[in-house]
């Protein structure tokens, strides 16, 4: 598995150019070798969608072998900064991506590849009759959110603030799956999760929409790490995620398009783009 023969190089490249079009040409060199192991560190909320994208990628590039490490973005970024051999990092928020690119200079220019919003998750059938964020202020309800230290926990606080509602959660979970499980098992009455988590929960839970004017749009950036053991494969994987093929999969799992990202991030993007012009540091 580990060391596959690097055959059909030109074929793979041609195929890549043909299928990926503009997205591919943006970040890969023409003579890239898309083979061998590509290690992708991705946020836990991307587990299902990236697994599907990985399968599609391997179908496209049979010589490539994509392996994933799914965990909280904060865990992943500290693992990479401590030297874990990651090729690609896909974060659930910009803060953790910044820890990779700014603090450690450990990745290239991050691209936003998806967006997500928040929803209230309730038990199937909504037995407590929860209609919106205001309903969660009821002290008799068992409400769980993520801890403010986790991206979605911070977003949850933001939503409460936007709605002008005081909610006292009964538990601050360390990841969003903890919120889903506790609601799906009936131990909690309601929780705040990503829209994609409600879809992933299927019949185990139900979602209550949060209006766009008080909702938060979470941005998912992706970058190739500076020490990527397989830089060409990494660039091609990033391009694949940004391509129509990758975007279709992400949309199937409930993610919004990158264009839905809040406009204030354009400043970050442009400054990042500026900095790449004078200093293209190749590791």
């Amino acid at each position, binding site marked *: 598995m580990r060391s596959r023969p690097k055959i059909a190089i030109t074929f793979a490249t041609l195929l890549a150019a043909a299928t990926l079009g503009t997205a591919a040409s943006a970040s890969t060199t023409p003579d890239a070798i898309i083979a061998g192991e590509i290690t992708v560190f991705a946020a836990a909320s991307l587990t299902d969608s990236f697994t599907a994208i990985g399968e599609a990628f391997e179908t496209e590039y049979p010589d490539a072998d994509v392996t994933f490490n799914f965990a*909280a973005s*904060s*865990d992943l970024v*500290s693992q990479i900064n401590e030297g874990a051999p990651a090729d690609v990092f896909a974060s659930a928020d910009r803060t953790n991506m910044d820890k990779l690119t700014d603090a450690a200079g450990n990745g290239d220019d991050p691209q936003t590849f998806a967006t997500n919003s928040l929803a209230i998750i309730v038990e199937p059938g909504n037995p407590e009759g929860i209609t919106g964020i205001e309903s969660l202020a009821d002290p008799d309800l*068992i409400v*769980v959110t993520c*801890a403010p*230290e*986790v991206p979605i926990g911070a977003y949850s606080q933001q939503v409460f603030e936007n709605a002008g509602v005081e909610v006292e*959660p*009964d*538990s*601050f*979970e*360390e990841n969003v799956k*903890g919120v889903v*499980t*506790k609601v799906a*098992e*009936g*131990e909690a009455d309601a929780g705040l999760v990503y829209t994609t988590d409600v879809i992933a929960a299927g019949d185990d839970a139900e979602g209550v929409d949060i209006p766009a004017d008080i909702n938060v749009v979470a941005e998912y950036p992706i970058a190739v790490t500076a020490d990527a053991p397989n830089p060409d494969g990494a660039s091609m994987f990033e391009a694949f995620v940004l391509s129509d093929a990758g975007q279709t999969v992400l949309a199937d799992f409930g993610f919004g398009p990158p264009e839905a990202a809040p406009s204030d991030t354009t400043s970050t993007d442009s400054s990042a783009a500026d900095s790449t012009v004078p200093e293209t540091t190749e590791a």
Partner: protein
Amino acid sequence: MPGRRSRRDRERLPVPALALAVIAIAFFALPFIGLLWRAPWSAAWSTLSGGGVGTALRLSIVCSLWATALSALFGVPLAWLLARVDFPGRGFVRALCTLSMVLPPVVGGVALFFAIGRRGLFGQYLDRWFGITIPFTTTAVVIAQTFVAMPFLVLTVEAALRQLDRRYDEAARTLGASRWYAFRRVTLPAIRPALVAGAVLAWARALGEFGATITFAGNYPGTTQTMPLAIYIARESDQDKAIVLSLVLIAVSFAVLAGLRDRWMTTGTGTGGDGRRAVLVAP
């Protein structure tokens, strides 16, 4: 094994054994040295005085002591049963009662949900008949900790009971002591070092318990957020804070373990006059 004598004679290990032992010491010491090396000493004080640490530490100590007490209360009779009474299915019962040692703690937490959670097999009646819901309370923390910690005490005490010469017990009985009296006045003092060792193991396990707690009890400062949970959540946003908190927990644990070991857990350094301890030293 000579108990008293080995201390006085300063037994010398053969060189290969000594070398292996030194490697073992290094194996345990190196990670802690690494932690100390990375510790943000300048920020330590502000982190410690920043509140929340005391709350989590107090909760950790209180809960782990409760878990240890409950483990001893129920674990000693259980060990007595397993060691002394020959009943059909004893091997099965022993395996059952120590299963939580090998179970991934998160699974243990989920299993506790299914049993005594709000919708659990038994928990639903607690809720319906008495209005008691255990999850998200300090009681849940103690239950989760006891669940994973008690086997350490049971196994230690059971081993000691098996090694103990039953004739001491029987002699007491022939002199008219009741079963209970003989256990309390002959057996229990004889296994005291094992009991203390088991209790310390159980306490250490309870103090470090993370997975079952966060799954079953949730994470809320002051109610269910023990030190390991606080450390884990802190790591999401601030690794330095997590390291400082870890050092606090390590210091407390180390002080207790080092303090107890020589005083209570060795058989040879009795504070004099306690002849019954010799029982354990005998082969």
